[in-house]
């Protein structure tokens, strides 16, 4: 996969419109995903759900295997399995299971089981890397529709429930006293997370989805003064990281998904430095 960008550019040299097409699709995919990962990533930080995000994302590999085995669309398979995983973890945690242990077992168990299951599906092992690390340069117009559709749905869901989600995040008791059911709000976030996982698989891959949730939001935290500012900033930083990573991938022939996460990490370092200087 590391040479994919180069190969594509070589094959299509001279046909600039096609070059533009796949690059524009990749850029649009990154921006579309960032719309959802910004605000959702902020909630992942506020509620300390980073490992929960990891577990849900790793389960996506199992979803890919199931989808390929049953000829269902891959995003649907990942959505279903990610959702099942998220609900399982949430309900075990609420029954008093140690969250760390539960996540440790389920996250890696699901990833390993997914990898084993995929090896049984004929002819897939060659493209396994694409599911682990993403394949943003190969985004098709229909992928793009899925990514934007899913992201906008998550964004709409979060905006609709924003005040209730924020209150429930602050304090379950405060929420209950105002007639908000904190369990329902948590379920909404769980659903949003599963949707984002299904959508992000193509862009950054199962191993790095949680990174695209956590890192831009953490960078935004260093600068923001309010929850809304942090969410919007996280989206902007996520989009910027996608574009920077894409450029890096294109010119230095690096894998796209990890390049985007690297760019996000660099932005985080700058933001943390800036935040520290401003406070000093």
């Amino acid at each position, binding site marked *: 996969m590391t040479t994919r960008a180069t190969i594509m550019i070589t094959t299509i040299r001279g046909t600039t419109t096609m070059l533009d097409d796949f690059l524009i699709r990749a850029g649009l995919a990154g921006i579309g995903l960032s719309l959802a990962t910004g605000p959702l990533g902020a909630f992942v930080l*506020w509620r300390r759900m980073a490992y929960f995000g990891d577990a849900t994302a790793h389960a996506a590999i199992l979803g890919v295997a199931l989808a390929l085995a049953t000829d269902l669309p891959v995003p649907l398979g990942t959505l279903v399995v990610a959702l099942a995983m998220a609900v399982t973890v949430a309900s075990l945690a609420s029954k008093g299971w140690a969250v760390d242990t539960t996540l440790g077992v389920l996250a890696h168990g699901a990833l390993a089981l997914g990898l084993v299951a995929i090896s049984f599906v004929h002819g897939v092992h060659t493209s396994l890397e694409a599911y682990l690390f993403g394949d943003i340069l190969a985004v098709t117009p229909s992928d793009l529709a899925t990514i934007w559709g899913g992201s906008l749905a998550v964004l709409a869901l979060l905006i609709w429930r924003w*005040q209730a989600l924020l209150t429930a995040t602050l304090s379950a*008791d405060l929420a209950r*006293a105002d007639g908000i059911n904190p369990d329902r709000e948590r379920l909404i976030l769980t659903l949003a997370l599963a949707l984002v996982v299904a959508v992000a698989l193509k862009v950054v891959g199962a191993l790095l989805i949680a990174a695209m949730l956590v890192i831009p939001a953490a960078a935004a935290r260093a600068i923001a003064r*309010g*929850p809304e500012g942090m969410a919007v900033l996280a989206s902007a930083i996520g989009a910027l990281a996608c574009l920077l990573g894409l450029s890096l991938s294109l010119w230095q022939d690096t894998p796209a998904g990890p390049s985007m996460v690297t760019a996000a990490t660099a932005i985080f370092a700058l933001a943390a430095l800036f935040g520290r200087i401003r406070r000093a």
Partner: protein
Amino acid sequence: MLLQAQDITVRLGGVEVLSRVSMGVEAGEIVTVLGPNGSGKSTLLRAVLGMVPLAGGQVTRAAGLRLGYVPQKLAIDPSLPLTVRRFLSLPHRVSDEEAADALARVGMDAAGQRQIAALSGGQLQRIMLARALLGNPGLLVLDEPTQGLDQPGEAAFYTLIAQVRRDTGAGVLMVSHDLHVVMAASDRVICLNHHICCEGTPRVVSAAPEYRALFGLGTQGALALYQHRHDHSHDETADHGAHDHTGHDHDHDHTGHHHHVG
């Protein structure tokens, strides 16, 4: 009656936390629920607020009664940036004017743009009170509102509660585990240990044998309370009864001379 609980029973995880508790709050009245840790005080508040299911009995509220709730604590994750002004708009958005009014009422006029995470415990309690006041509640419900405050902070907070009651005419229902600090601020005290042990004015309750039995034995019971208030160890209430301060009867108002004792 603003609020009336009739024979309410609450079971949590198979344990009967409240057994047939009946109580009520009148308009403009300050009622304090008193009891040791684990006696079901917070559960009683949550039950009358409708936050835990009842295994028996019922809670009736005056028609159109609005509640203002101040939780025991607010643990905000440091990753969440939140100004005081923004906090006041959760979950219902309020105008700048309403927010400024509420902040002025709790003596935090200039705090709007401060980060919640940067506030002291006493300031945070005031901000939570301001937020509870925003809906013009007929009844304020406070769950151990002074936990973690030092003694002057506690006194100042209860003065503020009394003032809010005077200004707004709201009833107040709150929880405490220390009679002496709430004595001045309460009209009525309900002594709770899964059921109601005794009830009445603070003076009556502090003299009641049921109250003595709950917090310690004989004069040592009052001593335990005294000691408890003095060293601010809020974990155990009854254990201090065994300390070697025998011979002093501290069953009176200590204000003014307790700082150099013990």
